[in-house]
């Protein structure tokens, strides 16, 4: 009997201890619950997955105000085990009715090459929340999903004359006519713009074709004067330069037209003095009896220099 009594009292002690422990756990849990109000898991479709599929779930945790998620407890990208890997993890928060709602988005990629239909489990994890110095855990439960094989295993396909390899998929042909039209139109616009730019900057071929009377005159006068600087050549050079002035103006230019010529072709205005002396010398050479005066007033060297200046001005201006 005493043996029996001891046994009873031992059972009783055990029961008491268990009750105490349970009470302590309950107190602790209720304290934690007070901080973490709810944990809700939203899973995607739970069946019909293949190797390589990504499964996205959402965990909503509602906590008291002033309670913060310990970000280190959030599962990070990376492998969980041999066949599943976290490929996305993000957290959003929002305030809801005096509480705080954490939305945790996770994306798992499955690498399990199943050869039969089976259930796989995504393990649960614990999130930690902090309020003051206290840490409160929130358990997220594990969940499982059904995975299927990509092909049949039994009976082997070869046994029935089949092939494991599917035939090659033919490349899709896209209609690119619209894109090609746009591309050609843009190309045409680009070429037209380039042509305009070339014309504006007198690049080839526009530079070569441009009518440049002074440049041509300078060239022929240089050639002429190389042979002889006699009076006849000098007069001829004057005539050549006169024709260049006429060609630039588009009409015959006399001495009294010089101001209007320079006003119209203002690039040459800086050569006004030379123009006036050139025309004055031309008058003495051609219309009065004093050709010698012209040579001293506007000699061959000066004539050549004037030509070069005109030609340079013409190239830079026109």
């Amino acid at each position, binding site marked *: 009997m005493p043996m029996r009594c001891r046994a009873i009292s031992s059972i009783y002690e055990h029961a008491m201890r268990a009750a105490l422990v349970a009470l302590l756990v309950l107190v602790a849990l209720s304290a934690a619950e007070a901080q973490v109000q709810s944990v809700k898991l939203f899973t995607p479709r739970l069946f019909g997955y293949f190797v390589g599929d990504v499964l996205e779930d959402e965990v909503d945790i509602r906590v008291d105000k002033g309670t913060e998620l310990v970000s280190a407890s959030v599962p990070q990208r990376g492998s969980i085990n041999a066949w599943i890997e976290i490929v996305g993890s993000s957290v959003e928060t929002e305030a809801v009715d005096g509480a705080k709602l954490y939305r945790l988005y996770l994306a798992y990629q499955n690498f399990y090459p199943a050869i039969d239909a089976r259930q796989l489990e995504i393990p649960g994890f614990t999130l930690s929340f902090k309020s003051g110095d206290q840490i409160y855990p929130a358990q997220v439960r594990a969940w499982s999903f059904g995975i299927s094989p990509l092909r049949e295993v039994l009976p082997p396909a070869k046994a029935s004359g089949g092939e494991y390899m599917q035939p090659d998929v033919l490349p899709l042909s896209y209609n690119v006519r619209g894109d090609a039209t746009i591309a050609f139109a843009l190309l045409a616009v680009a070429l037209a713009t380039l042509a305009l730019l070339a014309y504006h900057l007198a690049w080839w071929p526009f530079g070569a074709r441009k009518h440049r009377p002074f440049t041509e005159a300078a060239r022929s006068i240089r050639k002429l004067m190389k042979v002889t600087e006699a009076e006849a050549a000098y*007069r001829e050079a*004057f005539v050549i330069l006169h024709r260049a002035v006429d060609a630039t103006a588009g*009409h*015959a230019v*006399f001495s009294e037209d010089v101001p209007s010529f320079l006003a119209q072709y203002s690039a040459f205005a800086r050569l006004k003095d030379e123009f006036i002396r050139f025309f004055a010398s031309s*008058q003495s*050479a051609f*219309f*009065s*009896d004093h050709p010698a005066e012209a040579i001293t007033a506007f000699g061959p060297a000066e004539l050549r220099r004037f030509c070069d200046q005109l030609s340079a001005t013409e190239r830079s201006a026109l």
Partner: protein
Amino acid sequence: MRNVEASLASWQEQALNFETEVAKAVIGQDRVIRLLTVAVFARGHVLLEGDVGVGKTTLLRAVARAIGGAYERVEGSVDLMPSDLIYYTYLNEDGRPKVDPGPALRHGENLSVFFFNEINRARPQVHSLLLRLMAERSANAFNRDYSFPYLQVFADRNRIEREETFELPAAARDRFFMEVKVSTPSDPQIRQDLIFNPRFHDVDALVSTVKEETIDFRQLPTIAEAIQNSIHASPTLQKYVLDLWSAVQNPASADVSLPGVDMARLIRGGGSPRGLSYLVRGARVNAWLHGRDAVLPEDIRSLFPEIIAHRIFLDPIYELREESLTRDLCAAIFAAVPTP
């Protein structure tokens, strides 16, 4: 030679004085006054053309006064006969018919300015008498020859009416040294002055402000000859004038073209030798007025429209547009013919 140069210089001064005097009576017509001065010193007759009331008569009266010498004025009308210019017939106090020299002869050889107003109202018979007066400066009357060595004819015509008018024959127009168009001044200040300034209301008083006999009309032929002999026209200039002439006669050959005009058909007669010689005479005077001893292309160009344009005769289909076509043609020719 030095004497001639010195007298030319002093005459140039007098010529410029003459212009200043005439400009006292006529404002805003500087170019017309310059042209008339050229004509006076080139001894050429002038036909003035323009609207009514622009001051043609005032201008000529001022010119006549400044030149000095006798001045005679005739109004053209349909019934004017050549004899009316030469003879003056009337009954004297005794009731006997009497014939005296008419307006053209009255002053003898002292006649320096003969002003024919509205010349296109006179009949062709009158034109032909005028032709002789202008070309030979002489007339035959009372069984003898009258000569007018200092005579200069100024005529005017207005182009407003066409009724009861007689178009001047080409020969008569060719004998005029210049045809000058007188137009209303465009400067607003001058226009305002002409209307509001009382100075311009009384033409007689206005003309009397011009100093009389600014130049001695008896010396004009001599000085005109001296100018022609001493102002130089270089071979280059001579070639230029010849080029211009052939361009007038055959514009297509000188690459002259006008929009909408068949250049091969345009010209029926382009510039007579007399016209070109007048042009060179005028150009010499113009050069002299500018104090130069040589004619420049500018001289030719500045006188070309007045001296040559009325000698260019266009194909009948272009006649209605004659004035603007001739003006454009002259401008195009000067733009196209190069010199030196």
